[in-house]
């Protein structure tokens, strides 16, 4: 690796100029000037210009530790894709993982060490100077309190820090804004173990989520989503398929959208519901219970449905029904997390859900203890509160912060406390709130520039290796620590040393394990299983009393405010990445700003309209949010996402909307966790804003854009049936049309169109799609799609080639029970309406059935878009690549992640999805070189590649054996707006729901 550093630097320079040539544009009028790339003076060996190199490493955007493969072109990382070897994400990736690149090339990174000077502003300082300074500070802080605040670091780096802290006498606090304290406390309550289990969603037959948003933010979303779809997706008559999914929470989250049924229990009563179900199961012997289940009878006696239904807010029959379904499914899995674990009584709720699993016999089969999860080891919120106290008391002389931003997620309090700390050092490579308050900044490498590793759970160590030469003058914190500790060697050696020890016993250490390490690195890490432990009920179950404090409310007019993590911005760390800011929230479809979810009935009471600002005032703080009216939240609850409201953190995050953390209590609750539910008054401010949303009409109006089937009906379908084939023309007419179509087709057999060609197509299974939107970000990354920013998006100028349309699934009362998500992208029509209207043939039909869009030929009449029934063509209203332009989408060095295989579109041209044509051609060329045909599955579009639920399949429709053509023949298959005779190449497979009479829109 090290010998290649010089080459990398050289290539980086090359990369910059390359990106320059790709993106620099003329000032306004006229064609863009062409710039020359610098040719190789000395051709580096093992580097072929135009050919990508791939490096396996690990995503550090969250603690899940997904394996990624970085695609590197001419020294620039241009795309991240899941590492198929990794048992965590199995080659899939979420939006946040995709967007890691924008963290690497973020224009607002701290470019070099900085120190606060006399007049309180930062000034540059060289590395040696910075480290000297730090060493001195450490020396004088010894014994006066040294604290190292890190993110959830279960890694060699964490170990190193701990070793060093032991040396200098300090302590480490690893802090996650959305901790899992309740889970551990709850597990202790129920089973006497504080570890986190693994949940086997894949093999569950009935999934019951108590607020656990395992598809968006909870623990390991990609892994869970992959498993969830295996269980929940509909695949023919497979018995395991269509595990019913019931979601219990005060609001429908991204996870909730996949639900077959939504139980909007009163906030805080989730545990009560769980115990009520357990009571039913035990009392009616619905399942074979473990021996010691009898001990529960006493506890459960108080939870008869009749007794608690009122408190929960649903009728007892429902409770009984749920209990029966759950127990009889022979594989019921109940998970508690997210919202349910963030109440005062969160721990008790977790314990209650554990008991439900226990009595249903799922503990040990679907819920396995033993392999503790990385996030499990994060410090509790109580620890942070304690630290704050220490800081206030001046008991902290030196505070070092790495990979955490408590000043944002614990605003006010921590901010003030920081003032009382002797010396504050940040290792962050972004100027976030905490860093801005520090005295010394030693910017760390971005994870993609780093050596390192992460142990997401016992047995699994995911390796991290640099994929590009550092973009800025940053330095790996590991190296800094080693230097401080006065130890020799680099952090790379340290890490690899640790990796060698992972070598299984008995294997002959080949050259000190170098070979082993190398092999592991190519695989992305060491993936082993860890033994599971059987658990028994804890000796004392008295603390399992979730009914305590079901009342979150204060005085009468107070509202219950629920603060939930934003699916992609999470606790706010995603807010400095334009891809994530521009990605519409999967549920609300709102981008670039925060909002408060209000039920229409409540809004009617207050005379509130979408976009009106609500001032929420809790005991701890007040914030303004624009209202979004939706039936996907309980009428007596207001829901607010975190993520926005940064006061620092770069141009994309700063001064955007409001910070929901401000509303929250500053004290840890009973189990040492943080309470994300708070009572607050809500008052109209009279202000109004236009919500930035991509949602046109939430109702599908039976236009045939999405189709839904009841599970029984779906199972009864036989091959050859076509329930969605609307015959609009009478027999004789359609015959004539057929004949005419054939004649017409014959007349197209000219020039390149002669002979056999593939017909590229997609199959999208709506019963797999969860709406997580990873495909959207992947599309942005692969195709150099410009982000247009808040005010342009508000004017409907977003460029997203692939959009997710969310249509509510409603019960007979019109109340949402979930949602159908339909990815809408260019359908590559066989008879494309967009093509014939283009006066210059910029839009035309390729022999292999794509609707090509020739950007260089396009003059921008926009007729094609008018004539596109799917409205999937997007126009460059401005020059989004203009250097320093008002709407510049790729400010240096963001431009370095542009995909060299795809042009950056000029002002005034139309652009659209072409099934990642660059990948198609790439594979075809490869096949030609190897003198063979393109294999099925060889071409993978960006959206398909990243989709955690594997809902998208690409292939050749003319090849009857290809997966896609088999799926296209599925009786669930339908074409959107087939009645227009556009002959789309995309086949959608209808969403299947557990309800018998589903209705949508």
């Amino acid at each position, binding site marked *: 690796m090290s010998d290649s550093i010089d080459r990398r630097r050289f290539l980086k320079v090359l990369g910059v100029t390359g990106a320059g040539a790709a993106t620099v544009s003329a000032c306004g009028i006229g064609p863009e000037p062409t710039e020359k790339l610098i040719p190789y003076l000395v051709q580096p060996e093992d580097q072929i210009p135009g050919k990508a190199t791939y490096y396996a490493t690990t995503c550090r955007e969250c603690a899940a530790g997904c394996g990624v493969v970085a695609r590197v072109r001419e020294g620039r990382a241009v795309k991240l894709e899941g590492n198929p070897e990794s048992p965590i994400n199995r080659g899939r990736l979420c939006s946040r993982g995709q967007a890691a690149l924008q963290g690497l090339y973020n224009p607002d990174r701290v470019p070099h060490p900085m120190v606060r000077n006399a007049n309180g502003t930062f000034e540059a300082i060289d590395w040696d100077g910075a480290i000297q300074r730090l060493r001195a500070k450490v020396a004088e802080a010894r014994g006066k309190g040294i604290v190292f605040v890190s993110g959830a670091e279960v890694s060699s780096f964490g170990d190193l820090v701990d070793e060093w802290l032991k040396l200098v006498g300090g302590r480490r606090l690893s802090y996650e804004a959305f901790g899992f304290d309740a889970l551990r406390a709850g597990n202790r309550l129920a089973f006497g173990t504080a570890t986190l289990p693994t949940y086997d969603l894949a093999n569950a037959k009935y999934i019951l989520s108590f607020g656990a948003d395992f598809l968006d933010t909870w623990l390991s979303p990609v892994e869970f989503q992959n498993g969830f779809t295996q269980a929940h997706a509909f695949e023919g008559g497979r018995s395991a398929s269509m595990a019913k999914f019931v979601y219990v929470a005060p609001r429908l989250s991204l996870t909730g959208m996949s639900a077959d049924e939504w139980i909007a229990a009163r906030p805080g009563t989730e545990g009560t519901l769980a115990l009520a179900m357990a009571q039913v199961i035990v009392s009616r012997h619905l399942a074979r219970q473990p021996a010691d289940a009898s001990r529960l009878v006493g506890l459960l006696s108080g939870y008869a449905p009749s007794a608690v239904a009122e408190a929960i807010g649903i009728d007892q029959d429902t409770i009984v029904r749920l209990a029966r379904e759950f127990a009889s499914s022979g594989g019921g899995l109940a998970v508690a997390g997210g919202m349910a674990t963030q109440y005062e009584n969160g721990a008790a709720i977790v314990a209650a859900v554990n008991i439900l699993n226990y009595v249903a016999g799922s503990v040990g089969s679907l819920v396995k203890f033993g392999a503790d999860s990385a996030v499990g080891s994060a410090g509790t919120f109580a620890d942070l509160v304690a630290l704050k106290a220490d800081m206030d008391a001046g008991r902290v002389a030196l505070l070092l912060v790495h990979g955490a931003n408590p000043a944002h997620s614990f605003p006010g309090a921590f901010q003030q406390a920081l003032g009382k700390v002797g010396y504050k050092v940040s290792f962050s490579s972004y100027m976030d709130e905490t860093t801005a308050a520090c005295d010394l900044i030693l910017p760390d490498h971005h994870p993609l520039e780093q050596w390192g590793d992460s142990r997401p759970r016992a047995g699994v160590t995911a390796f991290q290796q640099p994929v590009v030469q550092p973009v800025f003058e940053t330095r790996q914190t590991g190296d800094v620590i080693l230097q401080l500790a006065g130890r020799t060697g680099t952090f790379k050696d340290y890490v690899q040393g640790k990796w060698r020890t992972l070598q299984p016993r008995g294997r002959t250490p080949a050259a000190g394990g170098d070979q082993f390490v190398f092999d592991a690195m190519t695989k992305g890490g060491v993936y082993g299983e860890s033994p599971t432990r059987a658990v028994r009920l804890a000796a004392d179950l008295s603390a399992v009393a979730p009914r305590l404090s079901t009342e979150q409310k204060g005085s009468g007019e107070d509202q219950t405010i629920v603060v939930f993590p934003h699916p992609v911005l999470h606790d706010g760390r995603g807010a400095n990445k334009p891809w994530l800011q521009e990605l519409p929230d999967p549920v609300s479809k709102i981008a670039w700003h925060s909002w408060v979810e209000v039920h229409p009935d409540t809004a009617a009471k207050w005379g509130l309209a979408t976009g009106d600002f609500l001032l929420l005032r809790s005991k701890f703080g007040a914030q303004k949010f624009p209202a979004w009216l939706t039936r996907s939240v309980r009428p007596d609850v207001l829901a607010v996402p975190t993520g926005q409201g940064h006061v620092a953190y770069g141009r994309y995050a700063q001064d955007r909307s409001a910070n929901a953390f401000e509303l929250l209590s500053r004290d840890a609750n009973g189990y040492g966790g943080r309470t994300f539910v708070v009572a607050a008054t809500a008052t109209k401010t009279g202000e109004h804003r236009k919500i930035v949303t991509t949602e046109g009409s939430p*109702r599908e109006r*039976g236009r045939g854009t999405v189709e839904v089937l009841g599970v029984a009906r779906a199972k009864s379908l036989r091959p050859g049936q076509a329930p969605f084939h609307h015959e609009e023309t009478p027999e004789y007419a359609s015959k004539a049309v057929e004949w005419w179509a054939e004649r017409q087709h014959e007349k197209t057999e000219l020039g390149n169109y002669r002979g056999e060609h593939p017909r590229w197509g997609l199959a999208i299974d709506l019963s797999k799609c969860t709406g997580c939107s990873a495909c959207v970000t992947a599309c942005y990354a692969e195709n150099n799609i410009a982000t247009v920013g808040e005010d342009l998006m508000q004017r409907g100028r977003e460029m997203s080639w692939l959009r997710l349309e969310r249509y509510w699934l409603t019960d007979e009362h019109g109340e949402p029970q979930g949602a159908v998500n339909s990815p809408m992208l260019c359908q590559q029509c066989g008879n494309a309406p967009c093509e014939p*209207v283009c006066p210059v043939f910029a839009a035309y039909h390729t022999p292999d059935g794509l609707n090509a869009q020739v950007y260089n030929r396009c003059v921008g009449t926009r007729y094609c878009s008018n004539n596109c029934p799917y409205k999937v063509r997007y126009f460059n*209203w401005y020059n989004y690549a203009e250097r320093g332009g008002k709407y510049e989408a790729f400010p240096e060095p963001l431009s370095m992640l542009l995909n060299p295989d795809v042009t950056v579109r000029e002002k005034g041209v139309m652009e659209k999805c072409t099934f990642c044509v660059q990948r198609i051609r790439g594979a075809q060329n490869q096949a030609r070189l190897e003198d063979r045909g393109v294999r099925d599955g060889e071409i993978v579009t960006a959206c398909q590649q990243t989709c955690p639920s594997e809902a998208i399949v690409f292939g050749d429709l003319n090849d009857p054996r290809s997966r896609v053509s088999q799926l296209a023949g599925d009786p669930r298959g339908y074409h959107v707006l087939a009645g227009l005779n556009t002959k789309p190449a995309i086949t959608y497979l209808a969403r299947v729901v557990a309800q018998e009479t589903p209705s949508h829109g």
Partner: protein
Amino acid sequence: MAEQQTPGTSSRVTYDYVTRTIARTLGGPSRGYFVLLGAAVALLLVGIITLLYLLRYGLGLAGYSHPVYWAVFITCFVFWVGIAHSGTLISAILFLFRSGWRTAVYRTAEAMTVFAVMTAGLFPLIHIGRQWYFYWLIPYPNERGLWPNFKSPLIWDEFAIGTYFTVSTVFLIMGLIPDVAAVRDLATGWRKKLYTITSLGWTGTNEQWRHYSKGYLYLAALATPLVLSVHSVVSWDFAMAIVPGWHATIFAPYFVAGAIYSGCAMVITLLTPIRKLFGLEELITVHHYENLAKLCLLTGSIVGYAYVCEYFIAWFSGNPHERAAFWYRAFGPYWWATWTMIICNAFLPLLLWVKKIRTNITALFVISIFVNIGMWFERYVIIVVSLAGEPYEPWANAVYNPTWADWGIMAGSFGWFFMWFLLFVKNFPAVSISEVKEVLAPPKRGQVRSR
């Protein structure tokens, strides 16, 4: 040709009177004229500045929003093309029908046609994304062997508008030759030179008249189908698309009628001030106005009928998309535009059934202005509302709002049009001299001359 005096023209009107009255209109311009001209040029400047902004920063400055990708610019394009239609209609079709009353008004109408086409032609160039590549729509030989797509209605447009502009210009010039010659023989100084050249040595010999009148006849014969074709083609820009609210077979006749309707209205709007300014009351009489009004009444009724048809078919077809589109049109957020259009175009002209109103020039002037407004909104409704309202994909609905850039360009177009028109009426006979004479009784021996 008509032997008897045209109704409404007194016996005082002799050949000589005609020549001199019309020649007088070319006399030294008044202050009022310069004020008007100045206003027109000012508007034009607004347009030019806006255009420069558009070129520099991009079309984003206009109000476009997904999926409304055509808006005010195309609306103006269709509006001006529409205006352009009455001219050739009056000069060509009525010429073939040998209706005498056209002679007094057709010159104005023709000039209006030419300048309106000039204006309309600018919009497609302005509205495209990369204006500097507009010539790619022209089939010119190039080293890459690229040709335009003749299946695209936009290319039809290019040919139709291009032909229409050429032919109507030629037609205007042809009509002018004898008149310019007449003016030439009265003029002096630089004007003499100008007219000497532009009259191409016309002397009115029997040989010249012989070829001229035959040629003029054939031109009229060619122009007539052209008028009908041009706006049909323009209408196909929409009818050929599958957008609900566009995709209708009725569009060609519907648009042609609408075009002539708006055209006649515009003729009235322009003629009235000119008549006053130049004191042409003797030549352009109430009789002419009434005939124009009747033409408006006819075409207006056709347009009204087309509106009814559209809605009926939308309902009758049972096509959910069509129904939704028209429901949105009438009762959606754009209801005001739709109802402005219906009231101005379908209801207001019904007043013209009343002879009193039909023969009241002031009333006609007011009505004509409302019709112009109504016709502009017709295009706005068809284009913007159809796109915004109910595309097939409910998710893609969006409401569109124009911005200063849209209005700026529109203002510029009016400035551009009126600038040319004003320059024309001051430098060339705004009423045909020879043809007005044609419909007068020729001088015969023994007639009493009242001078």
